């Protein structure tokens, strides 16, 4: 997928290319099982903001870059090579690539990402709220 990132006045800042996979060719039970990934409720965000206002807390926002590319895959998945960058083996067969990390377009990518960050937050001592699994607290 190729996109041109533009500034507010329409001039092109940079060209972006991203290797994505065709999630619609995946078959349930073979390439993926569970695809559900939780997100926080809007009311949780509002409650946390109101709570921060009440107690004069410091708020901060962080945005994970290309989150899906930073998450582990749980299934064994092979993808075709990029057109015009195809490599062959000694017998002349086209090679395929095994995924070590998730890609955009994969059905289970959001779930893989959520699993990855969830495990990490738990490992540094955070716990999930019982009211909203995407709200974490650290004592």
């Amino acid at each position: 997928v190729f996109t041109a990132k533009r500034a507010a006045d329409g001039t092109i800042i940079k060209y972006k290319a991203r290797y994505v996979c065709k999630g619609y060719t995946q078959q349930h039970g073979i390439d993926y099982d569970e695809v559900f990934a939780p997100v926080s409720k809007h009311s949780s965000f509002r409650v946390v903001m109101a709570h921060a206002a009440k107690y004069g807390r410091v708020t901060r926002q962080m945005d994970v870059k290309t989150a899906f590319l930073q998450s582990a895959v749980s299934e064994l998945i092979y993808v075709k090579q990029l057109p015009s960058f195809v490599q062959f083996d000694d017998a002349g067969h086209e090679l395929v690539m095994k995924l070590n990390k998730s890609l955009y377009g994969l059905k289970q990518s959001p779930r893989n990402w959520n699993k990855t960050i969830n495990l990490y937050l738990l490992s540094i001592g955070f716990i999930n709220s019982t009211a909203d699994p995407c709200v974490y607290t650290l004592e």
Partner: protein
Amino acid sequence: VIDSTIIVLYVDDLVISAIDQGTSDTVASELESRFDITDLGSVSLYLGMQVVRDSVTGSIGINQNHYVDLLLARFNMVDCNRALTPATTTTANSLYSTIADSPLLTDTMKTTYKQIVGGLLYLSVCTRPDITRSIMQLTRRMTARTDEDWANAERVLRFLKGSKFGLYYDGDADTDLTGYADANFAGDVGTRKSTTGYVFMYQGCAVSWRSKLQPIVTLSTTEAEYVALCSAAQEAVYLRRLFESIGELQSEATVNFEDNMSTMALALREQADCSDRTKHIDVRYHYTRELITSNQIRLEHVATQYQLADMLTKNLEDKVKFKYLSGLVMNLQV
């Protein structure tokens, strides 16, 4: 614990709330050591919502005025006339059109109608409890789209043009969570179902709200309000649990304001009665009562004119009343 650090996660967006800058920095650097992540500083733009902090009082405002401007531009409504309320009382209050001969829209306009409603829906769930009731009505008419529906959708956009505001959580206030529940008995003229409305307030402003057609036909105002109260009670349980987990202990029962005395009496009765008018109300009795008995919610009476959830159950005809209630719900600084 009161000084715990909180993270709200929305896919790849993290919001961190910490007791001081040092704690926030520690968590941020831990995340940076594990992920390729951008530190955007204090929250200012989250999922299209602009977040503004008052440096003196610590108050936090959340608005989508930029998003409203985009919607108005996208649907050619920048130069429209302003409306003072998002809907009129004659707005079709049903799955069925009230004006039988209202002409059907063209296919292009039908698609645009869906796009408008989609755009408005996002506003209504994020920062605009004042239009939630109107949007609920628009979403229920996605298939039968006539000129009448089009006018109703435009009406909301015209209202938005003159009402660019959002939520405001007062940093100087010291409040507990309180709820308001109301119902509009048999308000849907087609199915005679009632509408539930509830809103939960904290730090002077709404944190949670809902306007929803009830799934069942109820036989009295008392019963319709009872169904609404039960929905509000469910939400109260979730919110109390959320508050507990972020360190705001809920030792007192959450006050739920109700304007119907008989509904309150019904909820406070010791056991299910066998009155002819209420004998059929089953599970809701027991759920709401259990929460009252276990001291999780407490009912208090509120006069109808101060019932904040009123604006989530019906279109308010009186623009003064609409302005008054939305001002209270959204803590508008006017």
